[in-house]
């Protein structure tokens, strides 16, 4: 147990800090990544090894050795300085292309993605295939040199702005369900593709439906072989799930609540001085600390390349739940002020608590509902037997 950093890593932290102090003003703000300024910033970060760290130089990355602790320090320092962090392109598609793409695909796609010039959306879920993703029905048959795609995707975030979609389609309708799927790369805007935004409970439209009607894409735009798409995709799902339930985020949000409770009053009394609110806050703080330290434990295992076991499997379930509860507490202590929204007069923190309360519920549902997470914990981490499956409808 040693919470100090090595000399090398402390030096790295100093280096990052002085870089930030010097270049902070070039950062284009924390919003959605777009435009030249953002790409220039990303390019600067890559040059210093602060973005796309482990992506090979030949594909536009910094070409450095993986160092989990350095990545962690980077994330901490950028967050602390409130500066836009770099990225590695897209952690869903870039690792797949690096591992399984053809040389031609790597050259065409990785560099612009890493530089921020090409963005991607994911075409996996379908209206009838949520937690049972492998039952997807969007079909593609070969006609000449093309796949011809028909069907519908849903929950496609970023479909309105992305340049490309990586997509699962059923190409071998007679094969068992996991073995009939292929992984295709499709330029957005290809004729026969229609994107319709899905409004969500928060009022935003982060997600879309995408409809395919005789949409053609060359047969060369496949990753892996025909029928292997399910296995290609599983590599990326792993990457996507890692991001949810970040315990440091929950800890940061909790500090915002403490500020709120110290500063807001009801009947002239500080919210912090209302014992039942304070008791809830303290119970929540304990849970948040526990998850924060659990995160340190996972990180330590990752650094040593050891399997962190159970401590890793629970991160999403517990992390999303804590974020939701944090937002819930913030709303409750604000009382009537807590329900203000949409830029109302008297609104606090731009209504972010209500927004988070709903978004966090969306995250509890999305990327594997809490129920699916509990199945995974029960089966993979605790070794409990699987639920028997049914091949035919019941």
């Amino acid at each position, binding site marked *: 147990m040693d919470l100090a950093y090595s000399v090398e890593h402390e030096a790295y932290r100093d280096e990052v800090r002085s870089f930030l102090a010097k270049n902070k003003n070039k950062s284009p703000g924390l919003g959605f990544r777009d435009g030249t300024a953002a790409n220039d910033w990303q390019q600067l970060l890559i040059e210093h090894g602060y973005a796309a760290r482990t992506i090979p130089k030949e594909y536009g990355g910094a070409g450095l050795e993986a160092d989990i602790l350095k990545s962690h320090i980077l994330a901490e320092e950028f967050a602390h300085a409130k500066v836009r962090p770099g990225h590695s392109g897209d952690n869903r598609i870039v690792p797949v292309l690096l591992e399984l793409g053809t040389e031609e695909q790597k050259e065409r796609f990785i560099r612009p993605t890493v530089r921020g010039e090409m963005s991607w959306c994911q075409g996996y*879920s379908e209206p*009838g*295939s*949520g*937690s*049972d993703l492998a*039952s997807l029905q969007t079909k593609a048959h070969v006609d000449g040199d093309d796949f011809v795609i028909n069907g519908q995707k*849903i*929950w496609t975030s970023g479909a309105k702005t992305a340049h490309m979609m990586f997509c699962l389609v059923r190409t071998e309708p007679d094969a068992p369900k996991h073995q009939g799927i292929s992984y295709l790369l499709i330029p957005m805007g290809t004729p026969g593709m229609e994107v319709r935004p*899905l*409004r*969500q*409970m928060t009022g935003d439209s982060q*997600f879309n439906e995408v409809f395919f009607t005789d949409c053609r894409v060359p047969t060369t735009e496949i990753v892996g072989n025909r029928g292997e798409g399910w296995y290609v995709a599983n590599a990326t799902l792993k990457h996507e799930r890692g991001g949810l339930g970040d315990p440091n985020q929950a800890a940061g949000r909790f500090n915002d609540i403490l500020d709120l409770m110290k500063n*807001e*009053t*009801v*009947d*002239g009394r500080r919210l912090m001085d*209302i014992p*039942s*609110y304070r008791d*809830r806050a303290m119970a929540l703080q304990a849970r948040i600390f526990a998850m924060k330290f659990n995160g340190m434990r996972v990180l330590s295992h990752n650094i040593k390349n050891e399997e962190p076991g159970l401590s890793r499997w629970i991160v999403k379930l517990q992390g999303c739940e804590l974020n939701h509860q944090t937002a*819930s507490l913030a*709303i*409750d202590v*604000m*009382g*009537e*002020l*807590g*329900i*203000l*929204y*949409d*830029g*109302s*007069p*008297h609104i606090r923190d731009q209504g972010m608590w*209500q927004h988070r309360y*709903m978004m966090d*519920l*969306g995250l*509890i*549902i*999305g990327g594997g*509902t*809490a*129920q699916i997470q*509990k*199945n995974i914990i029960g089966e993979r981490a605790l070794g409990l037997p699987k*639920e028997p*499956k*049914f*091949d*035919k*409808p*019941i």
Partner: protein
Amino acid sequence: MEFMLSEEQRMLQESLTRFLASACPLDRVRKVADAEESMAEDVHRGLAELGIPGILIPEDFGGVGMGFLEAALVSEALGGAVAPVPYTATSVMVPVALMAAGSDHQKQEWLTKIASGKTRVAVGVTEQLGRRESAGINASNGRLSGSAMFVLEGMEADVFLTADSTGALHMVAGDAEGLERTKLKTIDRTRSVIELSLDQTPAEVLPGSVSNREPLLCTIDAGRLMLAADTLGAAQTMLDQAVAYAKERRQFNRPIGSFQAVKHMCAEMAAELEPCRSLVWYAAHSVRSMPEEARLMICHAKAHLSEVGQFVARTSTEVHGGMGFTDLLGLHYWFKRIGFNRQVLGGPELIREEAARVQGLVS
């Protein structure tokens, strides 16, 4: 001994539910929400034809003279349909205040107008429950100055009922001098809430409320009871929708409702919500039959429905998976209405504290 609804009460429920199903389907709600309107005029008119604005008002004043249980059943139905109409303030709180503290003349004037559905009265009493920021109203020489936050049904109101810093209740005309409304936007677009600013605005005090907080407290009780019933109705709809979705939606070759996880979520919602119905009924029935119990039961109903409502709102959304998170099924209208009811007229922690005080448990 008969702890159940009477034939007449069931008929009231049915006729309201039928009316709302046809006059106020989700599409109608969406229109109000999308246009940021304060209410659905047509639905309100239809309810007025059914006598709803005068539900509690004695027949002498043009009302239908029903009791609080009937009023709660109306609220439940409105919550069940997320109906964007004024009710809690204008049809319940204001008549209660007038009957408790109004002069004969005031009763004659206002109750008649309210019962007809043509005059709508908003209520601003939040400062007497838990003052946020520096809001508050002071009275002097028949004029009011200051501000009231979270004034319920404020955009569409013709008149305002508000409490001054002593707890005395005043009627203020919507077009009186020095009166300004500022719309407050909340998560729930089916209700209208405003901030009311007054500057030397002429007002008419309800004489029975001078140096007597009881009329104010009864008014708040009535409002809380209605919000609890509204949550009951909204949560019941969310449970019904979850059960229907669980029967219909299939994954892994089975209806998802055959999975224990989903089945148990539905069972837990039902097990939590069903006793709430009896709690709301009892609280409503007690207002006139067992007034010594009423305030405690209303506190419990409001606080407990806030907790159960939140649980059902979340769980039903989870049962719907991603679909619950989108606007497609409109589930979020109920989710947000429940969220609104939780905070307005006192959140659960503050009301539980009051429940203890009402019983004399706090030294």
